[in-house]
């Protein structure tokens, strides 16, 4: 088991070096999407439309955010991981077409995602659920 301190954008080489059981500390831009986000992204891409964010080399976080309105901006209360298997049907396309290099979630994913990770050079990582408060303290901006 090795420890890595990584920064986005992630290169394919860095991601392919990782092994099961390694610990990764990630700094940089993390984009959150869950069920509907995945569905919309895949639908947009299948129609040949552009996404609002270029995800190449970035990390995708299966997150369940709780936010509140403070004045004219949104503040994150907590942002924990959500069960990843629900996104299994979309993740192959997301990794292939959006160039995501790291998927962060919980509970693991299925064979299609594993295949996409192998083929296009991406990795699935687990962030233990229930520690949302620790995570918020490290959040720089929304």
């Amino acid at each position, binding site marked *: 088991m090795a420890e890595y301190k990584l920064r986005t954008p992630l290169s394919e080489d860095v991601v392919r070096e990782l092994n099961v059981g390694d610990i990764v500390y990630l700094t940089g831009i993390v984009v959150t999407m869950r069920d509907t986000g995945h569905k919309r992204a895949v639908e947009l891409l299948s129609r040949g439309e552009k996404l609002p964010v270029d995800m190449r080399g970035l990390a995708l976080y299966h997150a369940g955010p709780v936010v509140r309105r403070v004045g004219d901006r949104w503040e994150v209360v907590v942002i924990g991981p*959500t069960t990843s*298997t*629900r996104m299994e049907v979309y993740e192959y396309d997301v990794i292939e077409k959006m160039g995501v290099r790291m998927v962060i979630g*919980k*509970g*693991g994913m299925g064979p299609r995602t594993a295949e996409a990770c192998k083929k296009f050079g991406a990795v699935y990582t*687990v962030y233990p*659920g*229930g520690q949302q408060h620790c995570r918020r303290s490290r959040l720089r901006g929304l």
Partner: protein
Amino acid sequence: MPWIDWELVEGIDYAEVTVLLKGGGSEIVARARNLVPAEGLKGVMKYVIEAVYEAGPRPCPPIIVSVGIGANVSIAMKLAAKGLLRPVGVRHEDPEVARLEETLLQAINGIGYGAHGMGGRVTALDVHVDYAPRHPATLSVAVVMNCWAARRATMRVYADGRIEYITHLHLNKEVV
């Protein structure tokens, strides 16, 4: 509005309100089934262990497993969901059920999923079982799981309007 389930309890003049916050990850693995009654307790145990095994790391282990046994699946599911309110480490008052809880806990921890499926000795923190009388013709079982975070809070509202916080004692000082 959240789902509210309520019961009348004889002999008390206060309302005890418990909030249980439950994630989708630990809810999508809940299941219930009508067993063939002849399968008996062995069938129940097999069903519970299979449910946990097939849930894998999805419900955020280490989990709390709650089992309901009753005359139909809705009774069994209600008992199973209610069982999540029982604190970890508290056994059923019936020694036979308590033994069943311990046997199931040992069997489930033998699966070896560990925290978040990363491998380890603790897959479940506890197993709670409850039952209701049934007819020989039916044997329904339900399994509900909760992630280790098990967020819940209880308060009592007394007849004179006074509120007492049972789980979050510091709130008693802040509220006049």
